[in-house]
C-alpha cells in the first residue's frame, strides 16, 4: 500500500528515479504488501527509458521479493525457463533444498510450472519475476509468454512483470493485464538528467598551463553546452538518453579545451575570457559534421581527433614539442590560424591504425567482386578488356558510355573488341569470350528482374517505357548487387591488378581460396540458383558482393588501390 510508505522513503525514490513518478506511483499501487497484485503487468516503451530501474525501485521500496531475468541473455526458450527457476530458487535461498526436493528437469514450460508450484506453494509472501526485454527472447515459441502469463493463475504468490520495447503488443491472449507505458524522456527531462549527472568536467590532473577556472563558470558553460547538444544533435536523431550521455562525453573535452589549454580567444574583446558564445563559435564544427560522427557507434573509432582529456593533453604536449623544434615559424602559425594544427593532425591520423583487415590479394578480389556486382556486363568490354587498358584512354570510353546512357547512341560498342579476343590471353579466354558474348542479354533480364519486386508489373504498353526508365533510375540508386560468375571476377581481377598478372600464370585456384575467405567474412556470398539442388560446375556458381561502396573504397585505400577508374558512373 502506498500509504504505508514512509514519506522520506517516497521522497528518496522519487529523486532517484527522476521523471518517472507516474509509473512509480502506479507500480507501487499495484505491488504492495497488503493487497493482491495483478498476475501479469506489461511495462512497455522505447529503449533507455528506465523501465527496469523503475520497477526494481518500486519493488525494493516495498520490500517485495523480486528476481530479474533478462530475456535478451537467454539463448533459447529452455534457457529462459531454467534461468527463471534458478533465479527463483536463489532468491528464496533454498538452493540447499534442491537435492532433497527432487525437482523436474526443466525441459518444458510444464516442468517449470510444476517446479515453481512445488517451490512456491508453501509461501505466503509475494514473489515477482521480472522478465526484461521479453520481446527479444530468442526462439520463443508462440505459447511461451501466454503460458508464463498463466503461471500465476495457480500459484497465488507469484506475479510476473514483462518489459518490452517493441511497439507491437506481446501476444499474451489474456484479458485484464495492465499495460504501463514509459514514454521517452521529454526535452527538459533529458537535459535535466544530464545536468544532474555531468561527466568529468575537467582533466583530472589539471595541466599546469591551465588557468584557474571557477566551478560556477564551468557549470554554467556545461549547462548551456548540454542544451545546445541536445537541440542540435540529439533531438532530431535519437530518443536515447544513453546516446545523449555518450555524445556529451565525447564532445565536452574538445569543447572546453580552448579554455583549459589557456588559449586566448580571438576577436575583439574587452576582456580576454572565454564564455559560452565564444567557445561555441570556436568549436562550431563540433555541432556539425564532427558532432554527427560522434553520434555513430563504431567498434573502432574512426575519428582521428583526440577526444578525451588525456588525448588532448598528450596532443598538446606533442604540439608544443614541435613548436620548440621550430621556434621561429611556430609562433607565427599558431597566432595566425589556430585551426591549422588540428587540421594537420587530422590528415595525419586519417589512415586507420592497426593492420589492414584483408591481404592485398583479397582486397583486390573484393574490389573485383564489387565491380562485377555493380557493373553492367555490357560495359565489361569497355572497362576491363586489355584493349581498353592499353589503347585509347579510359576517358574516351567513358565519355562514350555516358553519351550512350544519355540516349544519344543506340549502338552497342561491344562488337569489335570482343572479336579481337584480347580480354583474357591465357587459359580461360574461351570462357571469357562466351561470357562476354552471351551474358549481356541474360544479365539484362536478371537486372530488370531485380526490381520486379519493387516495381509493379504493368501490362499496359503505354506505361512500359516510363517503367523502364524508372527502373533504370531505381537500379542505379538502389544499388542492388547483381550476381556474377567466378570467371568474370577473375577477368576483372586481371584487369584491375595494378602490377598486372603475368601471362600464363594461373590464379584461378588461388582466387577460389581467397573468395572462400571473403565469403566467411560475409563480404561476398555464394548464391545458388533457386530450384537447383547443387551446382556441379563451380564455374557456374553465382556470387554476389555484399558490402557497399564505402566499405570497398575504404578497404582499397589501405593498399593504395581504388575502384574509381573502373566505374561507369
Amino acid at each position, binding site marked *: 500500500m502506498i500509504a504505508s510508505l*514512509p514519506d522520506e522513503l517516497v521522497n528518496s525514490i522519487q529523486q532517484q528515479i527522476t521523471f518517472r513518478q507516474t509509473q512509480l506511483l502506479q507500480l507501487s499501487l499495484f505491488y504492495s504488501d497488503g493487497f493482491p497484485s495483478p498476475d501479469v503487468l506489461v511495462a512497455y516503451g522505447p529503449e533507455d527509458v528506465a523501465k527496469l530501474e523503475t520497477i526494481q525501485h518500486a519493488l525494493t521500496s516495498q520490500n517485495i521479493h523480486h528476481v530479474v531475468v533478462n530475456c535478451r541473455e537467454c539463448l533459447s526458450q529452455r534457457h529462459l525457463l531454467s534461468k527463471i527457476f534458478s533465479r527463483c530458487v536463489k532468491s528464496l535461498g533454498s538452493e540447499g533444498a534442491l537435492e532433497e526436493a527432487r525437482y523436474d528437469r526443466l525441459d518444458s514450460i510444464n516442468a517449470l510450472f510444476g517446479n515453481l508450484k512445488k517451490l512456491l506453494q508453501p509461501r505466503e509472501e509475494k514473489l515477482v519475476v521480472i522478465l526484461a526485454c521479453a520481446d527479444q527472447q530468442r526462439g520463443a515459441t508462440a505459447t511461451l509468454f501466454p503460458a508464463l502469463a498463466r503461471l500465476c493463475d495457480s500459484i497465488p504468490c507469484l506475479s510476473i512483470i514483462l518489459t518490452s520495447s517493441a511497439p507491437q503488443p506481446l501476444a499474451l*491472449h489474456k484479458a485484464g493485464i495492465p499495460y504501463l507505458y514509459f514514454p521517452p524522456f521529454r526535452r527538459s527531462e533529458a537535459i535535466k538528467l544530464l545536468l544532474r549527472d555531468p561527466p568529468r568536467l575537467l582533466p583530472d590532473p589539471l595541466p599546469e598551463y591551465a588557468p584557474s577556472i571557477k566551478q*560556477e563558470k564551468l557549470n554554467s558553460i556545461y549547462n548551456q553546452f548540454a542544451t545546445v547538444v541536445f537541440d542540435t544533435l540529439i533531438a532530431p*536523431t535519437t530518443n536515447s538518453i544513453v546516446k545523449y550521455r555518450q555524445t556529451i562525453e565525447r564532445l565536452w573535452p574538445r569543447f572546453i579545451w580552448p579554455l583549459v589549454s589557456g588559449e586566448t580567444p580571438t576577436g575583439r574583446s574587452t576582456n580576454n575570457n572565454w564564455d559560452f558564445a565564444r567557445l561555441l563559435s570556436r568549436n562550431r564544427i563540433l555541432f556539425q559534421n564532427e558532432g554527427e560522427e560522434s553520434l555513430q557507434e563504431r567498434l573502432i573509432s574512426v575519428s582521428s581527433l583526440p577526444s578525451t582529456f588525456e588525448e588532448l593533453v598528450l596532443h598538446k604536449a606533442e604540439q608544443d614539442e614541435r613548436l620548440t623544434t621550430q621556434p621561429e615559424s611556430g609562433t607565427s602559425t599558431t597566432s595566425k590560424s589556430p585551426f591549422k594544427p588540428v587540421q594537420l593532425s587530422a590528415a595525419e591520423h586519417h589512415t586507420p591504425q592497426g593492420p589492414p583487415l584483408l591481404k592485398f590479394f583479397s582486397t583486390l578480389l573484393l574490389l573485383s567482386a564489387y565491380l562485377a556486382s555493380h557493373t553492367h556486363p555490357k560495359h565489361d568490354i569497355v572497362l576491363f578488356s586489355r584493349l581498353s587498358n592499353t589503347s585509347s584512354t579510359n576517358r574516351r570510353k567513358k565519355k562514350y558510355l555516358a553519351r550512350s546512357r544519355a540516349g544519344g547512341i543506340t549502338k552497342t560498342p561491344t562488337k569489335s573488341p570482343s572479336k579481337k579476343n584480347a580480354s583474357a590471353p591465357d587459359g580461360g579466354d574461351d570462357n571469357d569470350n562466351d561470357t562476354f558474348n552471351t551474358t549481356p542479354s541474360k544479365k539484362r533480364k536478371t537486372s530488370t528482374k531485380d526490381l*520486379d519486386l519493387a516495381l509493379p508489373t504493368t501490362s499496359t504498353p503505354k506505361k512500359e517505357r516510363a517503367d523502364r526508365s524508372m527502373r533504370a533510375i531505381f537500379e542505379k540508386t538502389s544499388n542492388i548487387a547483381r550476381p556474377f560468375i567466378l570467371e568474370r571476377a577473375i577477368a576483372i581481377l586481371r584487369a584491375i591488378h595494378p602490377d598486372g598478372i603475368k601471362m600464363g600464370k594461373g590464379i584461378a585456384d588461388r582466387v577460389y581460396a581467397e573468395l572462400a575467405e571473403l565469403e566467411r567474412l560475409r563480404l561476398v556470398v555464394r548464391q545458388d540458383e533457386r530450384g537447383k539442388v547443387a551446382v556441379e560446375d563451380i564455374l557456374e556458381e553465382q556470387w554476389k558482393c555484399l558490402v557497399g561502396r564505402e566499405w570497398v573504397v575504404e578497404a582499397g585505400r589501405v593498399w593504395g588501390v581504388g575502384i574509381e577508374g573502373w566505374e561507369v558512373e
Partner: protein
Amino acid sequence: MSSDFDPSPRASKRRRTGRYGSQRTLLADPVPQIRHVSSQITTEENEDSVNLEGDQSDDNEVNTPSRSTRKSGNRSATSRRKANRVDNVDSHISEEDVLSRSDTPSTTRSLRVTRTRRSQQSPIDRNVADRKSEDVANGNNTNELNGESAADQNEDEHDGQGTPQPRSSGRQRRPPKRLLETMEQDKPTKRSGRSTTQTSREPTESAPASPALKGILTPSRKQKRGVRKSVIFDQDEKEIEEQLGFRDIETPAFKKLPKRATPHPKKSKAVEHNDATQSAMVEEEDQEEDHDDVLEDMLLDEPSATVPVPELPHTETFSTQSLVQNAPDLQAIKHIVLSRLTSSSLPSQPPAHLQSQYTQLHSLLKATIESSESNSVLLLGPHGVGKSLLLDLALSDLSSTYFNNFHTVHLNGFIQTDDRQALREIWRQLGHSRNLEERETEDIGASYADTMASLLSLLSHPDEMMDDDTETENNNRAQITTSKSIVFILDEFDLFTTHPRQTLLYNLFDIAQSRKAPIVVVGCSCRMDVIECLEKRVKSRFSHRWVLVPGCRTLGEWQEEVRRALVVGEEERARMGVVEQKCAEQWNVYIEATFLPSEDTQKLVRSHFYFTKSLPDLFMALYPSIAISQPPFSTRKATNDARMVATGAAQLTTRGPELSAPPSILAVLITLPVLHLSLLISMCRLETIHTLTTSNFNLVYTHYTELVQTSRLKQTAFGSVTHSGTLRQWGRETCRGAWEELGLWGMIVPVVGAREDDGGMRGGGAEVGDTRSWRSEVALEDVAWAIGQKFEDEGGFGGGAGEVLSKWCSEV
C-alpha cells in the same frame, strides 16, 4: 572444397511476413483472439544453466495453507438463483435504475459462510486425523477387504468428517480413487455409523505396494510398484504433526526453509549504492542551483518547456493517506475489493447476464458428480468474458456440497504443449507422479504409451479396478462415498486440437462418451469454430454440447457488474471478520454515491464498455483508483483529506486508459525523432508516388536527400529567413543508424523471398545492409497524423521542421 564454406543463407531465413500479418490483426482487434498455433512445440536443445535432475516425488507435494479468499464457500441456494434469473438479461436498464436499487442484492445475500466450517474443523479433524493415521497404516491389509466394506468404511469417514478439509484453492487435487461402487452401493442410504476394525500398525511402516493394474491395455512387463501417496496424505500428516505434536513421516525438507523477509543481499547492496550516488547527485545539484536559472531561461525559451512534467499526487497525498489508512477495516475492505478486481477471489455469485449459462454448467457438472453421468462440454467466448469464472464458481459450489466426490484436473493448452506433457500433468494432478517418474526415467518412449494405457485402464474399468482402488484409498485416506468423478478442465481447448492426432482429446472424449468412467470434459476456448478443428473420430465422440458465454449486452448490465465488483457484500465482510458492518456500509455508500457516479469513473466505465467490453481490463484500470481511494469515514479529519486524495485518484483514473491500452505502433510513431520520421516519409512517398511496395535504404536515402535539398532550395528561393536551418541534412551513416533503429522498432519490416525467381533476393540472410528490401508498416497518412500530433505536443519545437515534414507528406 566448395561445400566447405557454405554459409547457408537458407538457415537464417526469416518469416517476418507472417508476423506482420498477425500484428495487423492484433492491432485492429482490441480483444485479441487466440490464433491457431499450428506449430508443434519441439523440445529445445540442452542448454540448461541449471540442470535440476531428479525425480518428482509427491512426498513433497504440500497443500498451501489456505488461500482463503478463493474458497468462497457455499453459494446461495438454487431457489434464489432461479429467482434471480428473471430476465433482466436483455432489459435495458438505465443507470439511475441501477444505482437506485443497487443495495438490494447485497442485503438479500444469504449468509452461509465458511466461518461455520472453520469453527467445526479443528475438533473433528483431530479425530479424523487419528483414524486416518490408522487407516494409513492399514494399507496392505485392505486387500482382504472386498469392495463393499471398503466403501462402507469410506462412507464412515465421510460422515465423520462432515465438513470439507480446507484446501489451498477451490481445486481438488486428489489421487484418483477409482473405486466405483456398483450402482446399488451408490445410494446414500448406505451411510451407517460402522467403525473400522482394522489392526493398527506402526505408522512409519506405511509403504504399501501399489496396486497392480488390471486394465486390458496395461503392458504386462511392468507392474507399477511403489508408494502411492497423495497430496491429502501429506496434509494429513501435517495436521497430525500440528495437532498431536508428533509426526510419523519425515516432512519434506523445503517446508522448513527460512523465509526471508529482507530482499536479496545483492539487491540491497545495489540500493545502497544508488542511495550513495543519489545523495552525491543531490549535493551537486545544490551546488548548481545558482546556475540553474540560466538554464531555466534556456529551457523556457523553448515552447516545449511550457508543457509541464506530469504532476501527480506527491508526498502530500502520501502522507495524508498514511494518517487515515491505518484503519484496518479500510485495509480489509480494500483487500476484499482488490482481490476481486485481480480475480484472485471469486465473487459470491455469477454475473446476472450469465445466470442461465451458469445454471446449465452447474447442472451438467452436478449430474456428473452426483449420478456419474459422463459428459463433455465446450465453453466458448472471448477472453475475459467469464468462462473460467463460471467454471470456478460452479466447482466451488459443488465442492462445498460434494466436497470429496470428485477430482479436478486443470490443463492449459499454453502450458501443456503436447499430449505427453498433458498426460504427465494429469498424472501429477491425480497424485501419481511417482510411478510415472520412475518409469519415465527408464524409457521415455514406453512411458507415454504406458501412462496412457494405465490411465485408460484406470478410467475404463471401474469394476476391475475395485480392489486396487480401495487399497489405494485406504493408503491415503479411507473415504469413499460414491463413484468419484473427474472433472477435466481444458483451458485453451483449441490448442489441444493442434496436437498430433489429437490423442488426448480422443481418449478423453472416448471415455466420456462410452460411459466407462464418470468424467466430464470441459473445454474453454475463444475460437468459435473450434469444433471444426476436431478430427472426425474425435468429433464424433464429442457430445456437441456447448455453452456460449456472452459478454454484457447493455450498459446497464455492465455498470451493474462494476458495482457488484466494487461493493462489499455481507458474506465477504463476515468472512474477513475484522470489518465492522458500519465500515462496510460506509464503503458501499461511498462507492455508490461518490466513486461510481464521478465523471472520471464513468468515462472509464463507458469507454471500456464501448471499446473492449472486457471486465478484467476495466477492473485493472480501476485498480489504482480503488487502491488509493479514501472514503470519508471513521475520522473527521479524513473528510478534508478525502477531497485531496480524490483529486489524486481522479488524476490516476484519467490516466487509466493509458494503463490498459496495449501498445500500438502509432503511439510509438509520435515519439520518433525527426530524422526517423523523415526517413519514413521518404519511404512512404516512394510507395505512394512510384507504387514501390518495397524499398531499400539506398533508395530511401536518395529520396531523403532530394527532399531536403528541394525544401532548402525553396526556402532560399522564397527568401524565408525565418525558417533558415530548420531541417538539417544528416549524413549517410547517421541515417543508416536511424534506419536500423526503425527496423528494430518494427516500423519497417524486411521482405523475404517475395519472388519466386529472384536472383537478388535469395534467402533473407543474403541481402544485408543497404540493399536489403524493407516494407513500411505505416502509411503516409499515419506519418502525417503523427507529425501533426508530435509538433502539436511540442508546441512547434524545432521551428519549421514540422511544417516542412507535413508539407512532404501532403505534396505527393
